[in-house]
């Protein structure tokens, strides 16, 4: 979740409009086309379902990316370890695993 400043109507409705146009186009296209093209029309109709699926797996992907990044950071050789945060006290390091 990310709260930010008020968004314009364009920003609020950009993705919903794209989903609307895609799914309605798919509904109409499936009426007109036949055979293999039906599959493509079906994918367009699936836009709402695919969006929900993407949104539902996004947190998992994010957590995996973060976990992976942290692991890489932990396993990296000492000279490559970034030290964005200066040690708060003598002996402390920038390694996130060592931070409480």
């Amino acid at each position, binding site marked *: *979740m990310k709260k930010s400043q008020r968004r314009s109507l364009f920003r609020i*409705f950009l993705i*919903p409009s794209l989903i609307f146009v895609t799914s309605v186009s798919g509904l109409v296209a499936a*009426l007109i086309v036949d055979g293999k093209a*039906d599959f493509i029309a079906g994918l367009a109709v699936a836009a709402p379902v695919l969006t929900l699926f993407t949104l539902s797996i996004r947190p998992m992907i994010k957590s995996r990316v973060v976990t992976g990044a942290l692991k890489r950071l932990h396993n990296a050789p000492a000279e490559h370890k970034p030290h964005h945060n200066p040690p708060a006290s003598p002996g402390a390091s920038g390694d996130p695993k060592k931070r409480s």
Partner: protein
Amino acid sequence: MKASTIRVWAWVHKWTSLVSTVFLLMLCVTGLPLIFHDEIDGALNPDNWRPANPGGAFLSLDDILKIALSGRPGETPIYMSFDVDRPVVNVTTGPRANAPEAQMYFASFDRTSGALAPPADVGESVMEFILQLHTDMFLGLPGMFFLGFMGLLLALSIISGVVLYAPFMAKLDFGTVRQTKSAKIKWLDYHNLLGIVATGWLLAVGLTGVINAFEHPIIDTWRENELADLLTRNQSTFAAASTAASLDAAVAQAIEAAPDMELQFVAFPGSPYSTDAHYAIFFHGRTPATKRIITPVLVHAADGSFEGLRTMPWYVTALSLSRPLHFGDYGGLLLKILWAALDLIAIVILGSGLYLWIAKERRNEKSVAIPAPANAS
């Protein structure tokens, strides 16, 4: 958006949804099995019937008609229709061509042998029950109009929901569900998200449902105006046909007049869908879009000559297209599965809307029940 404008749209959203929710839930639940009616019918009533001579030559339509009439002495043919996926011809007969439906007799014949075949819709009572519940709740035309009105309320509810989406999402990213907040906020986010992504499908299904609710008046209007016009124009030209020409020749004439179309049924001279002198031969298209659009061709019953072809008016075309768009049975199994998924999403939207309203009412009741703190001053 002004606070007063939001309040008006919120009022529209609340009442259009509340009035229609129970009926829309019923429509969603009964609509779910109807999406897969072909598969369910096939599973419940497996069609074990096979033609006597699979791959063999077909008997002529005149021969089938002769066989049908030999089993119903003294009767007149009214309609002849053709099964889509099996070599079967269905013949409807009656004491006279314009006999009421109760006096009609329906029989199916194997086109390869002329033997009787079981009707295609035998044992489909479960799906028919669900379809009727979905269509008119067993109330006939008033039931259809009532459910059509519920469809209009759904459309209004969707439009008002889209308008209200903007102020709700003014400070949130698309797809945000505030999982750490209260259950009410979490379900509000789910309601908004599911509603906005399914708007296109919900509007399409809702509005086509409204058109379908007017099926009977639309068909009656077509019959009383367009078809009657074609029939009376030809009725006045020719007297009643005394001896019928070959049915096969008449159908061949009609096929010539309507190439690239599929033969659907024949209305015999004197029947409600024809004149006293003509075979009215009805065709439908071959693509998903034209499959349900029928085109009548009149062929003179005496000499098999072509008399006229009338394409459907726009309102019947709209009705024909709204049927597949409503039931989702026009794009194969993938589309059916998607239709079912979107139907389930619609059920969650309706359920969450109801939950949010109940939660709000409870909160209002609580705030009324708790007395205001006494003023110290």
